[in-house]
């Protein structure tokens, strides 16, 4: 980070300077209100597309959880759908087999289940890196899918579990046909968890994650408990992905083993990379563009959509490695330089 942010604090001791630096970063910018204003505006502008809107919001949440581990901690995983799927099935099985139909407590239980899985798998898997880690994360997710298929009687297998019921939100708001309640529900959950993630990444803990991402050897050298930090952030990200999965089940009222598909893990990766990893709002831009394109192109032909995803990925990697937000930043810099010679 730029040293100039801190120079104002000359004369204070190191601890105060560090605090001032973190506080500066944590301050809200005016532009940060924009996505939320747009999300609320979408509620009034597209009242008949709210079922789709809630799907976009939960994918934003899913991409945000991946941003925590990929963008901030630098963990490359090909199996993030594992936690999404665990959350989705927890929410489904709670209502179907457990008779627990209250949605918000369902989210919390889903988060807890995914967090336990994240902690357990992270504790084992995060000792590995490179191809081994990629293969292990990928294999874990497929194993979960195979397990789900093995216990077809409970999980419904690839046919899934349709027609799940939930009690009205907060005991008052019943789900309408157009998904208005679902949209506001997903938006509220996203807002709460986004604030949590934002606090985490700008905290000293978030700083150590950036340190691990940039230079593991040095973090080891200054005595940072690297493995513990990675497992912690992996657990938090798993919990959030679990909430996104539970939201998926609750808003769609069904779930299938497709949630564990490689396409789901790859899709969320594409969203995040497209928007820009490691910058919080990348998840918003990427997920919205991805979902809208998917909605539009899939109707024309599924092949067009798949081709477009592939092309987007190739173009992003070749020409915009920091995502669309990175591109926008570069453009702004050019613009600013033009004004001030």
């Amino acid at each position: 980070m730029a040293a100039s942010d801190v120079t104002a604090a000359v004369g204070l001791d190191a601890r105060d300077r560090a605090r001032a630096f973190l506080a500066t970063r944590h301050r809200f910018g005016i532009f940060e209100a924009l996505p939320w204003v747009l999300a609320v505006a979408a509620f009034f502008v597209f009242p008949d597309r709210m079922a789709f809107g809630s799907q976009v919001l939960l994918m934003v949440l899913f991409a945000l959880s991946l941003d925590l581990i990929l963008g901030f901690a630098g963990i490359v995983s090909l199996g993030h759908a594992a936690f999404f799927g665990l959350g989705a099935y927890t929410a489904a099985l709670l209502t179907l087999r457990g008779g627990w139909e209250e949605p918000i407590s369902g989210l919390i239980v889903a988060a807890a289940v995914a967090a336990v899985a994240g902690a357990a798998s992270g504790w084992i898997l995060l000792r590995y890196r490179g191809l081994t880690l990629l293969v292990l994360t990928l294999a874990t997710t497929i194993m979960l899918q195979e397990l789900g298929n093995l216990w077809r009687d409970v999980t419904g297998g690839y046919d899934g579990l349709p027609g799940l019921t939930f009690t009205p939100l907060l005991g008052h708001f019943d789900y309408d046909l157009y998904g208005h309640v679902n949209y506001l529900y997903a938006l509220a959950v996203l807002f709460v968890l986004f604030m949590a993630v934002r606090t985490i990444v700008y905290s000293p803990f978030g700083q150590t994650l950036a340190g691990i991402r940039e230079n593991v050897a040095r973090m080891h050298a200054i005595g940072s408990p690297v493995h513990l930090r990675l497992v912690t952030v992996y657990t938090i990200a798993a919990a959030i992905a679990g909430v996104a999965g539970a939201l998926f089940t609750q808003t769609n009222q069904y779930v299938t083993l497709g949630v564990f598909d490689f396409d789901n893990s790859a899709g969320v990766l594409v969203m995040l990379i497209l928007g820009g990893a490691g910058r919080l709002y990348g998840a918003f831009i990427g997920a919205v563009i991805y979902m809208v394109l998917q909605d539009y192109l899939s109707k024309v032909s599924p092949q067009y959509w798949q081709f477009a995803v592939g092309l987007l990925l190739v173009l992003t990697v070749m020409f915009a490695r920091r995502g669309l937000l990175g591109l926008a930043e570069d453009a702004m810099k050019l613009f600013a330089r033009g004004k001030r010679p």
Partner: protein
Amino acid sequence: MSATANIIVSILFEGLAYAMFLFIVSVGLSVTMGLMGFVNLAHGAFAMAGGYLVLTAMRSWDVPFFAALALTFVVVGAASVVFERVFYARLYKATELDQVLLTIGLAFMAIATYTYIYGPRPQSIVLPSYLTGQIDIASRTFPAYRVFVIAVGAALTAALWYAFERTNIGAKIRAAVDNRRMAQSIGIDVDRLFTLTFAVGSGLAALGGGLAIDLFGLTPSFAVLYLVFFLLVVAVGGLGSLKGTLAAAILLGVCDTAGKYIYAGAGGFIIYAVAMLILLIKPAGLYGRE
């Protein structure tokens, strides 16, 4: 022969045929990853493309099966060089994530293109009659096509072993896998070596794809469906190791087949469990270097 022995022979035979397919496709991936550390998730797409080329050659151009296999090896191998030069070469020094993303993107585009041309349904070919029957070996009958796949696998293993261990180029490849910088500093052109192995590896993947048509049926999603198994074989075997790739292919192929024979429901599960167990104990694979 007792019933148990019968089942064991069947498992070993089926498993070996599957293992040979895995080996033929994965060996190129293993060597290119070992050379450049390049994570190539589009490798399965080359296998898929190879399968469709065999299909088209046989159906539309009346090319015989063996000639079609040779053709797919040469054509896909040559075409892969274009991809390597245009896309891969730019990302040798990039992060693993960038390589993963680029190659997933290429695989998706390939699947979409082939679905557009051939449709999503599984395709099959008409094999020459001597490959379709049964063959008697030691008072037992085996499906001829699987015997053929095992024979091709064995022949390729021998050829690759010779090329690796006894030729000048093989020695250069081994040197570069061992220590790329050192190999470069003594004048080995590793970039060119990589292009060469990439082409041969992709050609072999295409050959494997052609062989797989009659084993599993060919769909465009072949490109990612089997990719997981190729990656498992490469990771379990150890990057850049011929011996490791072969050992991993046989181990995983036989375990997978055994799982499906013994308990059909858990079939898909066992191969992952075995692979994960090995990787947890030996992260660099059976014959990889830590």
